[in-house]
């Protein structure tokens, strides 16, 4: 009986140690997993931070580009820089819009604004073209 008891005790002790070891392994694994996860979170956080910084930089560059586009589209810029400086056109004087329309549908209201011959195409309805007539340009048909 005593032997049996002893062997039972050894069994119990062995089970306890096994369980303890198992728990320890599980505990350590969970702890390592937690640490790994935490490290990954922090690491991902840094990646997000870098992306946020990049996004901010891109937004700023975008804003600077918007400013540049607005400057380039300004009528004054188009007139002074492009027309006069780059293309060497004459200074604008009179504001002119030429109305192009089909030969079959002349405008009763504004016959004088029908564009020059060949400018209109059959089937096309009134099309507004904006341009500035240079002061020294040769006489154009329509309003001067």
């Amino acid at each position, binding site marked *: 009986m005593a032997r049996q008891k002893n062997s039972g005790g050894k069994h119990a002790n062995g089970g306890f140690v096994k369980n303890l070891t198992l728990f320890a392994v599980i505990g350590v694994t969970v702890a390592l997993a937690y640490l790994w996860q935490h490290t990954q*979170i*922090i690491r*991902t*956080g*840094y990646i*997000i*931070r870098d992306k*946020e910084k990049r996004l901010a930089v891109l937004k*700023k560059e975008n*804003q*600077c580009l*918007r*400013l540049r586009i*607005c*400057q380039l*589209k*300004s*009528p*004054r810029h188009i007139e002074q820089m492009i027309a006069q400086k780059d293309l060497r056109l004459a200074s604008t*004087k*009179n*504001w*002119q*819009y030429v109305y192009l329309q089909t030969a079959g549908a002349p*405008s009763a*209201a*504004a*016959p*004088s*604004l029908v564009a020059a011959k060949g400018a209109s195409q059959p089937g096309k309805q009134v099309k*507004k073209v*904006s341009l500035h*007539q240079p*002061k020294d*340009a*040769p*006489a*154009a048909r*329509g*309003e*001067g």
Partner: protein
Amino acid sequence: MIYDGAQRRIRIVFLLLFCILSALIVRLSYLQYVLRDAFVSKADNQHKMTLVLEPKRGEIYDTKGRVLALSVPTRSLFAVPGDIDSPFKVVEALSGPLGIEKGELFRKITQQKTFVYLKRKVDRELAQEIDKLKLKGVYSHEDTKRFYPKGELLANIIGVVNIDDDGLEGVELFCNRYLKGTRGVRLSEKDAAGREIIPLRFQEVPPIDGNNIHLTIDEVVQHIAEKELDAAYAAFHPKNASAIVMDVRTGDILAIANRPTFDPNNVNAAPPENRRNYAVTDFFEPGSTFKTITGAAALNEGAVRLTDTFFCENGSWKVPGKILHDSHGYGTLTFKEIIEKSSNIGICKVAARLGAAKLSKYIRDFGYGALTGITLPGEVCGILRPVQRWSKMSMTAIPMGQELTVTPIQMVRAYAAIANGGILLKPRFIKSIVTAQGELVKEYKPEPVRRVVSEKATRELIAALKGVVGEGGTAKRASIDGYEVAGKTGTAQKVGPDGRFSHTLYFASFIGFVPADNPRVVIMVCLNEPRPQYYGGVVAAPAFSEIARGVLKYLDVQPTAQPAETKLTKND
């Protein structure tokens, strides 16, 4: 004895230990309870961070969504003088790129301060170059700078902001509370290198960006107005000049131009007076342009008809206190001719039929003597005395635009009322205010104030005003091929330094609307003290004509009259 000695020594040791422990407990308690907050704060400073999140200032757009003002990112350079090891090295490296004189820069970085700005709002590229130098004690932080991509266009109206992006003038000032936005804050933790640990962010109140302002101004119309005003300003050298274009049906201001002006991206290059918005903040005696108001009142009351005749005293008429003169000696003129030829004597006789009380009532009904309510800062209401305080001479001065002062915006509003059939409108300058996400915050709708005169009266008056631009009128230069123009010239004598009307100082103006029978826009051009010529029909009417021509074409208003064949090549 030995035992007693050992006992005593043990007691002494224990006593000493007790004292030491007690001291430690006291010290620990002191640290834990008394100095706790200070140490917690120190610890927090080491691993916690508070980031202030700056909002983006709202943008300003024209009526078609074209950007007129926006904020772009820049950087501001600052120094911590205590961190600088070699001030001379810093001065040598930064003086040139920053454009700061060496002595001044040296003085800045050797001040007994913990923080000093070296230069605010510098280009990002320049800031990056300076950052690359890794000068100890020199740092930079994010900032924004207000930019006006259209330069001088609308500068006097949009205004400017100060170094802290608070509005100082114009729309920037008037709408500052909408444009500014609200700061946000982020509480987070940082690592040993001072970098934010994003997963440990524990509180964030995001910033609220400023609202965007949409104006009724049309960039193209504004450009046309400014270009033509520039031409008049260069030709006649006035002290200042203004032009306004208003939609007569809605009261929308399509353009307000002022000269002199300034570059809002380089404010300090021009004197402060160049930033004035003369069209709203300055008043003047209107002169003959005011005869239209007198005429409208008389027609509406039935005091006169277009065909009624008046003897104009051959150009000279003695009235109480003075002698009235016309520019030419006229005999008998109809009411229509009085307007066309701008007879001072004739209009005073018309006003006499109306009476002072009624004239005063109509003047006030047309909005004079009161603010128009335009959403711009600094508006003045002009000077208009109550009828009880009118003198004997008032009825021979006020009907022709003397003894009262008005602003250009008041004049434009009154003419718009005549053009649209008699309804006085509140000038609309801001169309809407929307959030950065596009949600509507506030909308300004066209606002009729009151009916001032009947449609019939305005039709008759327009017939007379058309004559001003026709043969025999005072403003033939205001005519436009293909369109009928109704308008009135004004050449008002200014009061000289001696307190009397000057014969050299004039306020010249032309105000009118087109097309005359179905008006779309009313346009006013005024020049303060032009020289050498000074007649409104000579200096202001041509600018009106050019502006109207461009605006009508741009708005796609079809011509109403066949242009004269001879005029087709006028400007070829």
